[in-house]
């Protein structure tokens, strides 16, 4: 008992005095932990605990729809997934969708940012037109884009038919289906890239352009030597941030193509859903989730590294 008192607040060793305890907690050297404690406690309860639970599950052969007691399998689930062609195929599909969507978002977002970089009358209002897609839910975007792509009732097919005289079924080929998803995703999220790039553009000192004008530098040279360096790191941030988010995309793809034709647009998030919620391979789904988490962590680390480097560079 006496041995333990050293780690307890002094108030406890003498008498259980509420004010003493409060003072102990409120001591300046405990300010940081005190302020952080409620947040960490909440996060642990709501975010971390479920994660640990499913991490544990990933080492068993648990199936949520069987009554048999789960058996410990060690790393077998991970090994099985890593050697499963279906899993790799879906990672590749996801990579394809993510890279083309993010590339398109970057291009469109960059263009939008250049357009909105300078002030003009009613800029605030026009900007809202561009920002609205971001505020819609995935479900409504997916449902309406599927209608737009419908060969008979959709506006896209109608528009194409004005030129070709024939209806057009975009989603009938793997390439078309991927394009359809990418366009919807890019439409929704290029405003995000625009906001980031805008921040970079705004930070370019005006005198650099004035100097360039005196030197009669071409528009391309000005862009390459002045604008781009200021926007470069922000573009990288946009790239990483959107990559992480697009990696998780589920509703949009599921509702537009349900992974079809065949399995040509089946992403890894859809497969994880099927494993866990349809096939009841609960443990395997957890293992796959942790593989996804691993990718996310790697991407997040790169992201934070870039953020840090950028902030450091700015302080210099």
């Amino acid at each position, binding site marked *: 008992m006496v041995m333990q008192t050293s780690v307890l607040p002094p108030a406890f060793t003498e008498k259980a005095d509420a004010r003493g305890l409060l003072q102990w907690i409120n001591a300046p050297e405990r300010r940081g932990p005190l302020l*952080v404690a409620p947040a960490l406690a909440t996060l642990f309860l*709501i*975010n971390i605990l479920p994660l640990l639970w499913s991490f544990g599950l990933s080492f068993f052969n648990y199936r949520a729809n069987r009554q048999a007691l789960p058996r410990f399998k060690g790393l077998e689930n991970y090994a099985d997934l890593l050697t499963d062609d279906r899993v790799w195929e879906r990672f590749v599909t996801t990579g394809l969708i993510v890279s083309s969507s993010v590339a398109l978002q970057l291009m469109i977002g960059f263009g939008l940012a250049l357009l909105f970089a300078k002030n003009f009358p009613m800029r605030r209002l026009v900007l809202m037109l561009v920002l*609205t897609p971001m505020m*819609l*839910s995935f479900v409504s975007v997916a449902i309406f884009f599927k209608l737009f792509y419908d060969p008979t009732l959709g506006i896209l097919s109608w528009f194409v038919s004005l030129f070709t005289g024939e209806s057009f079924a975009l989603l009938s080929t793997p390439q078309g289906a991927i394009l359809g998803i990418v366009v919807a995703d890019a*439409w929704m999220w290029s405003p995000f890239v625009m906001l980031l790039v805008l921040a970079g553009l705004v930070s370019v000192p005006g005198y650099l352009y004035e100097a360039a004008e005196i030197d009669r530098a071409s528009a391309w040279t000005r862009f390459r030597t002045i604008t781009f360096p200021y926007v470069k790191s922000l573009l990288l*941030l946009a790239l990483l941030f959107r990559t992480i988010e697009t990696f998780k995309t589920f509703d949009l793809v599921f509702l537009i193509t349900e992974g079809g034709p065949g399995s040509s647009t089946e992403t890894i998030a859809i497969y994880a859903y099927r494993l866990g919620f349809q096939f009841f391979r609960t443990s395997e789904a957890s293992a796959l989730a942790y593989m996804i988490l691993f990718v996310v962590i790697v991407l997040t680390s790169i992201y934070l590294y870039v953020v840090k480097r950028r902030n450091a560079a700015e302080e210099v």
Partner: protein
Amino acid sequence: MSGSFRKHDQASKLRAACAWIVGGIYFAPVFWIILTAFKTRADALAIPPKLFFSPTLDNFHAVFFNVSSTGDVTGTGVWLYFANSAFIAITSVLLALVIGTLAAYAFSRYPLKGNDTYLFVILTTRMLPPIVVIIPIFLMFRVTGLSGSYLGIILLYTGFNLPFSIWMMKSFFDDLNPEVEDSARMDGSGDWTVLGRIALPQVLAGLAATAVFALILTWNEFIFALLLTGTETRTVPVAIASTIGGEIGVHWGKLSAMVSLFLIPVFIVTFALQNQLLRGVTFGTVRK
């Protein structure tokens, strides 16, 4: 001088015209959804598309009222769903904001051992696909008896808004000049006074922006609302999903009407706080 001014003026006009065109194209799908809210089903699916049609308010009526097989008109409960959405979103965002701001201030001013690791883990938890945690969260709700209650879903959203709030607010605190706070301390103010009287008033705009972004995210959240709310605590996104499937594939008009109504508060708030958006979308990791 005047020539160059006119040139500048012309460039601005050209830019405005381009922006309007691009903005128009960009907004077209949203405009389409809003138009559809005023269309009959036949008009909504008509090809060639109908820009001019006789508008109907039936869809909005259907959002608020059910007409039963016997012709009885009853409310759809959409007001309850709106009230639930608002109550749950506002409460959880406020909670997350209070807890998150305190933590953010600490991460900014009193770095813990492994400060960056904490922040990293906090960010990572927000980046997981939700399907990963659904079953364990369900189990926790079952153990605690929180399923279907306001408290449960509010706590959950608080947990999900926290990483965002912490990162955002930390970025704002980092921007402040610590010397102001130090000089206040020299004058004998305690830490709490410094936080309440000096630091917080300087980040009010940041608090507002954080709140707005958390509100938008919470307002739109679907999967947990679907799984963890009960009949009485249901939110609007779940009600929106009810317009899909059943006897008919998509109730185009009703879906559009709900989406349009649901968009209004978000639109207004975003317009009002447009300048804070940038910080919002990047979780505060980017600030100018």
